[in-house]
């Protein structure tokens, strides 16, 4: 197949901008804390997001370990029941709003998206920085709730409890409201960038799949988040003034709150998983050294998931809505499994007969497929009305969404982090220990959450402080797994931190990838590209040659062709 593209005219890229030295990387071009505080560079903003997000992950993770420790025995183990309620609520709220939702789009997406379209920045760099500050601001409010009276409503803030409890619901919901703005700003930025800043030659169906998934995610961020915003405003008004919209004591409707809340929060789980799926598409293709299988189906399935995701919120209320509504929502819920299944089968078909290298990112990608498939399949039990009556609000639900959110999104996030780490910081990491961390996380994860499926089917309700002695065995197993998981994550962090100080210098293209971010140096210069990047087929991996000395993948044939401008062999 031969395709011709015009190299994009980017005259200003090659001329230095305001005296900045082009050869310097974005990390070292300017120094001092203020150069980070005021930066409009999407790469620096991405790195700052990454630091904030990983910090939140640490805090949320420590809380998870405390919760699991408490559950070692029925009754009191290390904390009283009230503290336990605060602990699992903040674990959920921090992990959801501060970690998973912004993790891939705001940290990795911010860094990678403009590079992938060969642009100098996102469409609205100031709004991008504003989004980071709103995130920090929102995080302060959310964490302030912990310092004030705590928060014991569960991360869902269900009324009427959230309108009557003494804990700091207003501070926490204001925090989430602000975080919503941050998320919307990222979404608007990504849609505008993908629409208006793609280079000539990069048509919609020649975009890398990570861009497709970020685009689909941004659609949800823009369409769903405002509804959460107004819901939380009404909740605050309910608490402050008693407007009687949600509070049944004043004639309000608490189920209306649930509908409003899940109209955002169910699409939000696709905000969490879609970008993860995009990362997996990149990783699977790269490390199988084959063209991604079913490219168009992967694009369409991202959009399908984004749109269908808006129609299934009612499955969170099977027990409180009409039977008719429950049947409809159940059917719609099953429909989401179609595009998800398409993705899994396309990844498997890409692996088939590929020459697979088990690098660290690939280990995480394969873990993702296993864990996401398990999480997705157990979702079918919850989407089916008859089984849901039994499994509703049990540990089965907890295990299900941890398999999808943690086994899915977290695995892809870490895989993507390892994949783009050399590009972000210009350093290679220790492959052996990288793989070991994946093994530790994979084993620890299953050890923690598989027993919770069993607990759920036996009837252990979620969020309970106390439980029947018969459940203790499985709780002990689960808690043991949580600590193994913790060790795996610590190894992972150690590998990455070690690479910053001792890592081998990374070449421009250590994995032999055709997407544009690998055409610039690692780490990239301030304005991303020294020369206008070439628009090529993002999944044509055929003519890369590994230079043993530098570890870089070159394209000798493409380089020769370059002398005749306008023609690139695919």
């Amino acid at each position, binding site marked *: 197949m031969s395709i011709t593209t015009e190299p994009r005219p980017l005259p200003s890229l090659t001329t230095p901008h305001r005296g900045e030295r082009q050869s310097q990387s974005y990390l070292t071009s300017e120094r001092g804390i203020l150069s980070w505080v005021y930066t409009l560079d999407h790469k620096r903003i991405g790195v700052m997001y990454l630091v904030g997000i990983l910090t939140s992950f640490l805090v949320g993770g420590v809380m998870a370990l405390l919760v699991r420790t408490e559950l070692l025995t029925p009754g009191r183990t290390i904390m009283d029941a009230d503290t336990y309620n605060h602990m699992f609520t903040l674990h959920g709220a921090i992990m959801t709003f501060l970690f998973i939702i912004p993790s891939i789009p705001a940290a990795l997406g911010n860094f990678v998206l403009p590079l992938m379209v060969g642009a100098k920045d996102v469409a609205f760099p100031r709004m991008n920085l504003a989004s980071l500050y709103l995130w920090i601001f929102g995080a302060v409010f959310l964490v302030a709730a912990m310092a004030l009276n705590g928060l014991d409503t569960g991360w869902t803030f269900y009324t009427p409890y959230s309108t009557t409890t003494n804990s700091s619901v207003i501070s926490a919901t204001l925090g989430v409201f602000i975080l919503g703005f941050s998320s919307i700003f990222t979404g608007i930025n990504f849609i*505008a960038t993908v629409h*208006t800043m793609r280079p000539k030659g990069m048509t919609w169906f020649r975009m890398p799949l990570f861009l497709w998934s970020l685009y689909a995610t941004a659609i949800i961020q*823009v369409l*769903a988040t405002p509804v959460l915003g107004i819901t939380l405003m*009404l909740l605050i008004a309910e608490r402050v003034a008693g407007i009687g*919209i949600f509070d049944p004591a*004043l004639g309000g409707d608490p189920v209306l709150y649930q509908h409003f809340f899940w109209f955002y929060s169910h699409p939000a789980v696709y905000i969490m998983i879609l970008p993860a799926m995009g990362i997996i598409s990149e990783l699977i293709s790269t490390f199988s050294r084959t063209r991604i299988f079913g490219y168009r189906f992967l694009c369409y399935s991202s959009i399908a998931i984004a749109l269908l995701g808006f129609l299934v919120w009612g499955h969170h209320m099977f027990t409180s809505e009409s039977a008719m509504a429950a049947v409809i929502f159940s059917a719609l819920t099953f429909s989401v499994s179609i595009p998800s299944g398409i993705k899994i089968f396309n990844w498997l078909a890409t692996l088939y007969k590929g020459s697979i290298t088990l690098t660290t990112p690939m280990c995480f990608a394969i873990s993702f497929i296993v864990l996401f498939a398990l999480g997705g399949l157990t979702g079918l039990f919850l989407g089916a009305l008859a089984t849901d009556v039994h499994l509703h609000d049990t540990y089965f639900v907890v295990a299900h969404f941890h398999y999808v959110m943690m086994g899915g999104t977290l695995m892809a996030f870490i895989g993507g982090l390892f994949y783009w780490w050399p590009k972000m910081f210009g350093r290679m990491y220790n492959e052996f220990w990288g793989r070991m961390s994946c093994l530790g996380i994979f084993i620890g994860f299953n050890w923690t959450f598989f027993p919770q499926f069993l607990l759920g089917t036996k009837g252990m309700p979620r969020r309970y402080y106390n439980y029947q002695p018969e459940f203790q065995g499985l709780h002990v197993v689960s808690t043991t797994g949580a600590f193994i998981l913790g060790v795996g994550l610590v190894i992972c962090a150690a590998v990455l931190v070690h690479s910053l100080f001792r890592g081998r210098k990374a070449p421009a293209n250590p994995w032999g990838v055709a997407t544009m971010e690998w055409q610039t140096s690692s780490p990239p210069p301030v304005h991303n590209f020294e020369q206008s990047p070439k628009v090529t087929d993002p999944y044509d991996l055929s003519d890369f040659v590994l230079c043993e000395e530098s570890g870089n993948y070159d394209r000798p044939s493409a380089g020769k062709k370059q002398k005749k401008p306008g023609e690139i062999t695919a």
Partner: protein
Amino acid sequence: MMARSAHGTYSSRFRAHHFETAEQQYAASKLGMWLFLVTEVLFFGGLFVAYAVFRTLHPEVFVNSAELLDTRLGALNTVVLLFSSLTMAWAVRCSQLGQQRGLVICLTLTILAAVLFLGIKGIEYSHKWHEGYLWTSRYSASDVSSAFDRAGTFFSIYFAMTGLHAIHILVGIAAIGWVLRRSLRGDFGPNYFTPVDNVGLYWHLVDLVWIFLFPLLYLIG
């Protein structure tokens, strides 16, 4: 390459470095603004859903309570906002044609109309406050008949919707004020009018929300 689009050549003074052409920048800003308006529609959308739910549950409460609103003041405010939308649209046209004086006059008129709207709204609010036509927990009107049992619910929604709308008017005044300041500086002309255009879009949306609020709240009696 820059000169050929419908929007003519832009002065490069306001082109950010990461855009290749001013047209690209214009297209991006315009798309970004429309996306923001979409989020606004969904933000208000939640309240419209709440309105629909409670009106379906208690139609008689809504019909009776709406009688307590002052339709004349509501209609007057509708006219005021429609007028402000006209002056705003005119301002955008002036900026595109480079009519400095017209631009400043139109923006000033728009701000004055917005202030007038808030003034009339304030009269309505203070009247409701004195009569005790307030949201559920503060509802204290003395003329509560059995049909008015839940009038507080209506007024909760009334205050939530018009209050949120009033906040948007305030933000609009600030935004138009910013554009006015820039136009006094002579920033805008046929080559560069994106901020006027985008603020105008926002203002029309705020107006449009009121076009829905007025009949749904005042005219259902």
